[in-house]
């Protein structure tokens, strides 16, 4: 426990240049607000449904980390792929996947993205270039490097955005992938979502090098620490990394300093951190409140913001309704999709 404590997410800083990130236009702020709200309300609803027994198994909520995936999506172009681990609902919504299909997968219904056969951790959308949803910690890093390999092979100018957490960052295949990505100059952005806890183990108890932006140093991969609670900083860093990749310079690492408000999964007793720590981040750095406050300061009316809230709530409520009434998969589905 003697290890120096990582700066709290509340004090997360963009070490890029120390300056505040470029301002968003009003349109961008509104878009970011809506997307982040959709994820938060969706996750809150998923938490409720889990409590009611409508969602089974594991369920990992993204609440608190919304600015990371929303900001990154704003930096991408059509055809760029996204792949992540098991805390994946936010990534699905941000890539444009339908809330009904995601929620129905959580409840294990036939209208779910995987026809009810994948569940929370295993959903995919070829149409939205979302490659999962992977339940084995770190596996998506090699797979995401493979997506970048395919982009390089095809010369299509696309970038693979490969997300993983501070916990996965200690897996061996991450470094095998780093080596190949830099060796072959593959267009992959490794987004390390440092939410400070790998399940219940804090970064300081698990990581010898706690500056994750330096994890690519021995492979010559550039890295940056980014304030992952500020959607503007995320987008700016994402654009810089994407430009690097598209220029044929190889991979780029972004350490997103973020925070998860909820437990690791629904069954997390939360004995490893204090309630005060969580409350402080929520109060000081909440990614959604940051945008809302900027919009209010820019004279956007409360009524306009409430309209966005209402629209998002309608989508989420409809998805919950759909997910609870959609039938379970037909028994015959047990035997399909093993081979094609």
């Amino acid at each position, binding site marked *: 426990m003697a290890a120096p404590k990582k700066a709290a997410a509340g004090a997360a800083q963009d070490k890029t240049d120390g300056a505040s990130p470029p301002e968003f236009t009003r349109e961008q702020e509104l878009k970011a607000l809506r997307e982040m709200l959709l994820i938060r309300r969706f996750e809150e609803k998923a938490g409720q449904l889990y409590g009611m027994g409508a969602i089974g198994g594991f369920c990992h909520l993204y609440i608190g980390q919304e600015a990371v995936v929303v900001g990154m999506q704003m930096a991408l172009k059509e055809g760029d792929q996204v792949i992540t681990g098991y805390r994946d609902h936010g990534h699905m919504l941000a890539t444009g996947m339908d809330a009904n299909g995601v929620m129905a997968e959580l409840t294990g219904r036939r209208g779910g993205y995987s026809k009810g056969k994948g569940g929370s951790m295993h959903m995919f959308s070829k149409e939205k270039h979302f490659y999962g949803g992977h339940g084995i910690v770190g596996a998506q890093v090699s797979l995401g490097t493979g997506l970048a*390999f395919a982009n390089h*092979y095809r010369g299509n100018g696309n970038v693979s955005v490969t997300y993983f957490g501070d916990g996965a960052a200690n897996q061996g295949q991450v470094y095998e992938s780093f080596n*190949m990505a830099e060796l072959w100059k593959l267009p992959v952005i490794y987004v390390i979502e440092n939410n400070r806890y790998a399940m219940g183990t804090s970064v300081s108890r698990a990581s010898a090098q706690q500056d994750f932006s330096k994890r690519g140093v021995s492979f010559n991969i550039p890295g940056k620490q980014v304030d992952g609670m500020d959607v503007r900083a995320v987008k700016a860093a994402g654009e810089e990394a994407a430009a690097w990749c598209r220029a044929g310079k190889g991979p780029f690492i972004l350490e997103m300093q973020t925070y998860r408000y909820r437990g690791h999964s629904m069954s997390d007793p939360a004995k490893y951190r204090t309630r005060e720590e969580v409350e402080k981040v929520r109060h000081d750095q909440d990614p959604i409140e940051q945008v809302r406050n900027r919009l209010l300061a820019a004279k956007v009316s409360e009524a306009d913001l409430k309209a966005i809230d209402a629209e998002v709530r309608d989508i989420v409520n409809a998805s919950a309704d759909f997910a609870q009434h959609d039938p379970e998969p037909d028994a015959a589905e047990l035997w399909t999709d093993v*081979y094609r």
Partner: protein
Amino acid sequence: MPIQVLMPALSPTMEKGNLAKWLKKEGETIKSGDVIAEIETDKATMEVEATDEGTLGKILIPEGTADVAVNTPIATILADGESAADLAKAPAPAAKAAESAPPAAAKAEAPAPKAAPAPQAVAEPDPEVPAGTEMVTQTIREALRDAMAEEMRRDADVFVMGEEVAEYQGAYKVTQGLLQEFGAKRVIDTPITEHGFAGVGVGAAMTGLKPIVEFMTFNFAMQAIDQIINSAAKTLYMSGGQMGCSIVFRGPNGAAARVAAQHSQDYSAWYSNIPGLKVVAPFSAADYKGLLKAAIRDPNPVIFLENEVLYGHTGEVPKLDDFIIPIGKARIVRSGSHVTIISWSNGMTYALKAADELAKEGIEAEVIDLRTLRPMDTETIINSVKKTGRAVTVEEGWAQSGVGAEIAARIMENAFDYLDAPVARVSGKDVPMPYAANLEKLALPSAAEVVEAAKAVCYR
């Protein structure tokens, strides 16, 4: 006394080679470490260094001689003070070879098949090959390379990656020439990083590319087995059919020769346990080619288990533009009515040899080459057992939870009333593979064990 230089073994499985070139002439002085000759195998050209000093007395095998067996004397070196007249004193070649090189001599007795190419033992014509088709004689190594090259010419999405597949031309020379034809973009040397490159291959396959991932041996694929099973095999199902993975994982599997426990495991049973994977393990050169082409075209992940001992073996391969053997079909390679022997890959060596022995004693064995382990061609097995009433399975892997156990269960489930004896299993012994030549031989199945098992189920 003059010293004999013997034909060296340059790899664990080498049995013979070509004496390509002499770099020293008779009468020339030789110092330890001098390169005296070049030897060619089907894998590589290697230099032979002198370990003794003196004068090259006589060249016993002229350059350009093909198929010189390991341990054949190839030259004599005269020590200081000796002359050509002393050459007669050299020991008789056979005796010298036997006493001076026990490991190699033991290898010659090892259960690895000698030259007998599979198709010669085949009594039944292959239904996949049209009558009258011209055949070419090829090694299994060449058949594999041709299968890959043909599919790479046909489909730009097919590429091959793995350790030493490109510039080195393949650790076992299976990818020989592919780099020259297809370039470094499609023939990719990876770092030694099995877990990582297996995942990279699967990720690329999820986008629609068709990787052929070579493992130097399947023993090393244990590092990558999470990606093979959790990512390649399960994603189609977990995605409700949206995201599949057309990929071939191939490489040598099972025992080679004298490489001990960590390099000798047979993974047939491991992979055949997994829904979502197809598992292929051919024996004949024609099947190697036709099944690898089928595997590359298959939209599912295919585990293609090769056998290093078989790489240099030759067989007749149909000269057809597009020779495909469908995955999932076993083949009756020898028909008989008294007992069914079921095997695959190198297990067929013991099965066919045993069938010959049994025939001498009036027992006609029907030999089935399973070729594919998953999906398993249960129908061919059951139809045969209904005819013979007796069955013996032969595998190099361990018996517990093995493929033979699975076959026995299927026979019991589908043909119990036809059985005249319990199904017998011949398998690798329940120990890690030992190194010592005699122990290794004991650990592997043998034709004699197959004969014994067949007689037992025939109550003879």
